């Protein structure tokens, strides 16, 4: 049975950025923070307290999984996080929603009223 993504949308900016950061690969906390800064060209930065607060909520909602430590990682304090299959579904739903918003915004900016059904 396909899980309903509607209750999760729209995603908050912090949640969207965290899920986008994890979409490419598993990351530890600092890696998530750096990836978000990179993707947003330095315009959006998360502190660790804010990030872990969001991560806890995302893990409770089963959008993100913790995958533990990596043996090759010299810093044993690091834990890695992974976007779950359901989290990927929610993120895709949000991207689709944003695409619709962008299309609507462009139509309005061009002065063309969207056709109503």
């Amino acid at each position, binding site marked *: 049975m396909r899980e309903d993504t509607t209750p999760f949308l729209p995603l908050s900016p912090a949640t969207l950025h965290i899920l*986008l950061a994890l*979409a*490419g*690969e598993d*990351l*530890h*906390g*600092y*890696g998530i*923070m*750096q*990836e978000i*800064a*990179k993707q*947003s*060209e*330095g*315009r959006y*930065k998360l*502190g*660790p*307290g*804010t990030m*872990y*607060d969001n991560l*806890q909520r995302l*893990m*409770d909602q089963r959008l993100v999984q913790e995958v533990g430590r990596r043996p090759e990682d010299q*810093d*044993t*304090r*690091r*834990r890695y996080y992974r976007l779950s299959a359901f989290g*990927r579904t929610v*993120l*895709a739903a949000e*991207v689709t929603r944003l*695409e619709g918003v*962008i299309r609507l915004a*462009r139509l309005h900016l061009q002065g063309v009223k969207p056709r109503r059904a």
Partner: protein
Amino acid sequence: MLRTLYITLLRLHPGRFKYRFGDEMVSIFDEARGNESVAPLFGDAFVSLFRQWVLRRGSPRAQAVAATHAEGVPLFYTFHDGLPSKSALMNGAVLAVATFAAVMFAIRSGGTPHGFLIGSHHPHHSHLLPVRPGAPPSELNTELTTEVSMRPDVSILDHDPMRPVIIGYFRGLAILDALDVNHDLVISDEEMRNAPAVLKTFDADGDGQVTPAEIGSSTDRTRPGFMRVNPVLAALDRDHDGIISAEEISEAGASLAALDRNHDGRLTWREVLPEPVALEVFLLFRLDRNGDGVLSREERANPFAALFSEVFDAADRDHDGAITGKELVDEVKRRADLDGDGVVTWEEMVAAPKNGLLGPKR
């Protein structure tokens, strides 16, 4: 001292939060301290303290984590997990405010985690002094006093579409951000001469050289081509062995001066930003998770890659499902070269949304 203060703030968090994330947050502090200012971490910690005690009361309990001890890291599970009394909360709030003030005073007074003092709060003078604690005066380099413009380069206007790209690149590349002492998006002659001292602050393990692991994001720094695609890094790494050696550090000023194509004594964004197609392809190849130099269908099966699906589909000219670096370079050039002159400028690249290079085509 700053690390101890940060750990103290973490200890003030509720048990469920500090047990679960305390070690990781200290790890982030240790890593960030080597790369950037820690002041934002303290601000975040104070906000987190308020959030966890006031807004998250009654939240689902975090999963219990087996207490493991990393050498030198405090164990958080020894504290009682429960809401303190009101008097304790009030005392904690007073202590938090006092600690915050003390931390801000320590940072503003020139706390020197790297034994290095750059710049001053005087609006018209910059004092560049490499300082080793306890060093005799004879070891100090000549003090440089110069007029420093505190305004961003006037050629980058607020409405300039290149502005976010330039700011993002200058702030995103740690070494460039550190070289740009006054954050005016220009590397001045004085800042170039100070480059050796700046580079030494990146030598986290003290071995006299700077490796990719000591700079760059965790995503990019271990990838082949990271040093080459960034002109500043490529210039500093004169022998292109992927490491900025001690000798190359000492020659950093001259290496950077070689980037000054118009010989105006400073490096502007046109001289330090990478070639736009190379950078675009380098960033898209973050999707190459197995590092085989090819973007497979599996590696492109994610929401981020979906934003560029049109570009990827068009790049796969032989329709084998695998996109090579050359195929992607050719496709990006084809879309970005708006005037068809064979050269892709940054002005053409920022117009790329029209060509689908930054998402769905307009």
